[in-house]
């Protein structure tokens, strides 16, 4: 049996110390159950606000700063995410979910503007320029994908110097985050991925992770009555599958191990030299940074501090008994923090640095903090006409009730019926909804925006359901892969109480939804135009033929067509002959 150390490592505990210097970076490694490893990269650069206004940039990237100045943006949060955080096995999210986004791209910003129209115009210029900077489709965040959250997001920075701030929020759940987004992300760093922990970041490994999120946060921070600085934080969090990452790049197909290397359950009656029932390995897997990322760290980024908290660049959170070997030619410093469960290293300058953890049988483990809430959301019903959304939110705590805000931002072609919205807490008839904000969608102009403030009692489950209808679109509005369906942005949950210790807040997000819509037949616009017009012409022709003509007895009119086809042809010939005769006479 493993005995668990009562250890709660919070990013928050190590984070505030970093704010002091102008540039700092930190990598935190943390083994998770099931051969997973959480790697959190964090880069911070500060620029004083006077220097920022004079366009005098040292660590803050000029390209981003000028965009922010142009668009009047005071606080910016940009997220690129992939995959799902498995809270059941991995526990609490890094940064309490505050540095995390929904699947795809998520962007929210506080924009300074006199009125809503100006704010939206600035928002559009912000999304369009960021789209160019990050090679992402951010320019597709238009009015239908933009909402103005009321309760869910709070500014992280100090905004006493600015007035008329407008919060705008947009998501692109369909966006596939990939290498072309990582390259501009690395270019914003002072060491640009050449040295320091950012030298580990490689598109092949980062986007192969089970879960990854890249975040950029620009926040003004003011000291008590003193100078304000603009702080930019770049974060990359990823969960690597250690076995998967250790596969060589030139031979990535998983193959079964030779039978000698598998641990067999010898108690099985069929166990023999060629038959084996594999048992779950009890040892912690061995790995090194070079195994996981394909290369070691290329020495320290020379811009980081030499001493103090900021020098602790690489940290690993393991039980003290875990063996860690350092492979480097340079001089490094090891610091042990938090009763030896956190080992931090100051990187050598100019020479490679690698951590090697051999495979090891452990007697102690780390406690993973339980998340305060867990949430899942899915679509019920079948068919492409209507359905219902069900969100299940669980409060695992046996003592505390949790108050939170639930935000849904739905595309306009998914039409929710808010009168069918029901929220139930298991074992209680009282409505958990305390406050509702709802702004309905307008076709092709605006998406649905729903915010609910709810309270969930201890150890109970809250279920939110509502019906929706699927609209049929014009055939030009479907994407090329229309039958795949449309992505619906994840719901965002922010905890109000228990409140977070810092001003970042505690967030969690559900997964995105896939919404199949009814599709027309894309191949036949001409046929439809022709067939519909034919039916209309039949009705119109039939009726107006009756209205404009006069009835006479059948025997009262001489019939040209008498004698059937023969008579008809004879009549035509007769008519032609008469015409020729007339022409001849004229000439």
């Amino acid at each position, binding site marked *: 049996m493993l005995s668990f150390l009562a250890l709660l490592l919070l990013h928050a505990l190590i984070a505030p110390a970093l704010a002091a210097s102008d540039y700092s970076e930190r990598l935190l490694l943390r083994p998770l159950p099931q051969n997973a490893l959480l790697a959190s990269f964090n880069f911070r650069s500060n620029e004083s606000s006077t220097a920022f206004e004079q366009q005098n940039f040292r660590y803050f990237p000029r390209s981003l700063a000028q965009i922010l100045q142009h668009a009047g943006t005071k606080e910016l949060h940009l997220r690129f995410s992939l995959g799902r955080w498995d809270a059941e096995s991995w526990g609490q999210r890094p940064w309490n979910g505050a540095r995390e986004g929904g699947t795809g791209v998520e962007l929210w910003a506080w924009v300074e503007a006199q009125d809503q129209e100006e704010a939206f115009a600035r928002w559009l210029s912000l999304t369009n320029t960021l789209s160019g900077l990050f090679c992402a489709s951010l320019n597709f965040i238009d009015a239908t994908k933009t909402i103005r959250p009321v309760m869910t997001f709070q500014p992280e920075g100090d905004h006493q110097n600015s007035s008329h701030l407008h919060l705008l929020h947009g998501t692109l759940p369909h966006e596939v985050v990939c290498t072309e987004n990582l390259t501009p992300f690395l270019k914003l760093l002072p060491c640009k991925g050449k040295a320091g922990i950012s030298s580990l970041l490689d598109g092949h490994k980062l986007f192969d992770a089970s879960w990854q999120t890249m975040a950029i946060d620009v926040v003004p921070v003011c000291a008590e009555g003193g100078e304000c600085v603009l702080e930019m934080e770049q974060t990359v969090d990823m969960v690597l599958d250690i076995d998967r990452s250790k596969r060589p790049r030139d031979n990535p197909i998983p193959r079964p191990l030779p039978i000698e290397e598998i641990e067999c359950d010898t108690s099985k009656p069929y166990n023999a030299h060629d038959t084996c029932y594999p048992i779950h390995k009890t040892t912690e897997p061995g790995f090194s940074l070079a195994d996981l990322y394909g290369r070691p760290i290329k020495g320290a980024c020379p811009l980081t501090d030499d001493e103090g908290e900021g020098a602790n660049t690489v940290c690993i959170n393991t039980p003290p008994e875990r063996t860690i070997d350092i492979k480097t030619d340079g001089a490094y410093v090891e610091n042990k923090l938090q009763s030896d469960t956190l080992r931090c290293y100051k990187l050598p300058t100019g020479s490679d640095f690698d951590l090697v953890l051999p495979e090891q049988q452990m007697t102690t483990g780390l406690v993973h903090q339980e998340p305060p809430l867990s949430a899942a959301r899915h679509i019920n019903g*079948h*068919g*492409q*006409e*209507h359905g219902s959304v069900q969100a299940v939110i669980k409060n695992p705590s046996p003592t505390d009730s949790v108050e939170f805000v639930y935000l849904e931002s739905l595309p*306009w072609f998914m*039409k929710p*019926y*808010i*009168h069918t919205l029901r929220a139930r807490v298991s074992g209680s008839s009282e409505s958990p909804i305390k406050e509702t904000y*709802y*702004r*309905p*969608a*307008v*076709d*092709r102009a605006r998406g649905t925006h729903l915010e609910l403030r709810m309270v969930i009692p201890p150890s109970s489950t809250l279920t939110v359901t509502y019906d929706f*209808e699927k*609209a*049929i*679109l*014009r*055939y*030009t509005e479907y994407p090329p892969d229309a039958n795949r369906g449309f992505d619906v942005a994840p719901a965002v949950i922010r905890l109000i109480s228990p409140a977070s210790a810092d001003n970042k807040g505690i967030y969690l997000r559900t997964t995105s939804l896939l919404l199949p819509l*009814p*599709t*027309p*037949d894309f191949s*036949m*616009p001409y046929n*439809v*135009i022709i*067939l*519909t017009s034919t*039916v*209309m012409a*039949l*009705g*119109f022709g*039939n*009726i*107006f*033929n*009756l*209205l*404009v*003509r*006069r*009835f*006479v*007895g*059948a*025997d009262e*009119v001489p019939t040209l067509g008498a004698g059937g086809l023969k008579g008809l042809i004879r009549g035509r010939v007769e008519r032609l002959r008469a015409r020729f005769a007339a022409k001849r006479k004229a000439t």
Partner: protein
Amino acid sequence: MAIDQQKALLFGAAAAVRLLLFTAFPSLPTLLAGRVEVSTPVTSFKRLQEGLFLYTHNVSPYDGGVYHQAPLLLPLFSLLPNPSYYPFATNLLFTAVDLLGASALMQIVESGQSVTTRLFSSSRKDMRWSSIAVAASFLFNPFTVVTCVARSTSALTNLFILTAMAKASQGASFTFIFALSIASYLSMHPILLFPPLLLLCYDVRVTKTKSSSSPLAFTFYHTMGLVDAIGGLLSLSAFLTGSWEFLSATYGVRLLLPDLTPNVGLWWYFFTEMFDSFREFFLGVFWLHVASYMPGLTIRLRKQPLFVAATLTGIFAVFTPYPSIADAALYLSLVPLFRHLFPMMRYTFLAASTILYATFLGPAFYYLWIYAGSGNANFFYAITLVWSLGLSVVVGDSIYAALRDELDVERPELRGKDVKRI
């Protein structure tokens, strides 16, 4: 049996059928309200409930893409208990709407305007059904019953159209104007019924009073009355909702078709597949097409204004942007008024079998497209084409019969002989 007794029996039976369906199958109204054939975006009861919810929670229902129905329905339905929990009052209201409609239909039959007008008297005027039979064909028409059970608000429009016709055929100007203005206020296109019904009302008034008042003054006063009534209803709506934004959300949606939810009409798939640059052009053409029937029919069939009005409801059931089977139900229950035309109709079998074919295969093909996935949109589209074709055959054929009937009066010597159109 006295006529009153028969009427009571009929109405009792019709109400019993509806209330039985409501109570024996509590999920049936919700199921039918979700059917595209019955509920369109502009008449759906589910959308009305959504609008009602927003209205009672102080969110403007017109600042959204779901509710496209008339504003005055909101205070009316907010007086009733919430239909999700206490549906009985709403069910009773819709049953009463159907019974009132049937009673208006009986008044139309009793006025005799379908066979004998001021300027024309059919040679087959004895061939007609009693008011009870016509009302029964309305009340027990499956399309009417389904519309009532689905609680589609087009039942209200149908009631006011029938009332307008009944009052016009009685020469009651005030109620006629009032009912027609409400019908137009609810669904916009019934305004096209105004000229034929005005003629009908004028004819009846002249016959009754035996003195011909000036037709111009009559038209002027009634038009002013209609404008005033609709203006009053719109101002009241603006007063209730606090702004004029309901105009674009109700009439704007009917005019411009932003919501392409499938229905039994011809517009939705056409505008789904239409190229963007031609959309406005074809919207104009389609509306012009709908409106073009009114002057043509009114002038050509000047002697039979009630027939013109009935035929126009048939045209609405085919060619308006959001038709449903409720519109077809209205037309098909007005057709029995013209029993004397049946012998001269040529394609009754074709029309009846086409409509039955579409009725049975429509839901099946919709299922194949939306749920089973084994068919595509063309399956349902083909059925709507057949349905529209069937209804337009009935409309065209009845016009032929009406004109033939007029010819028999003008030229009795041609009766029973073949005729040609020149």
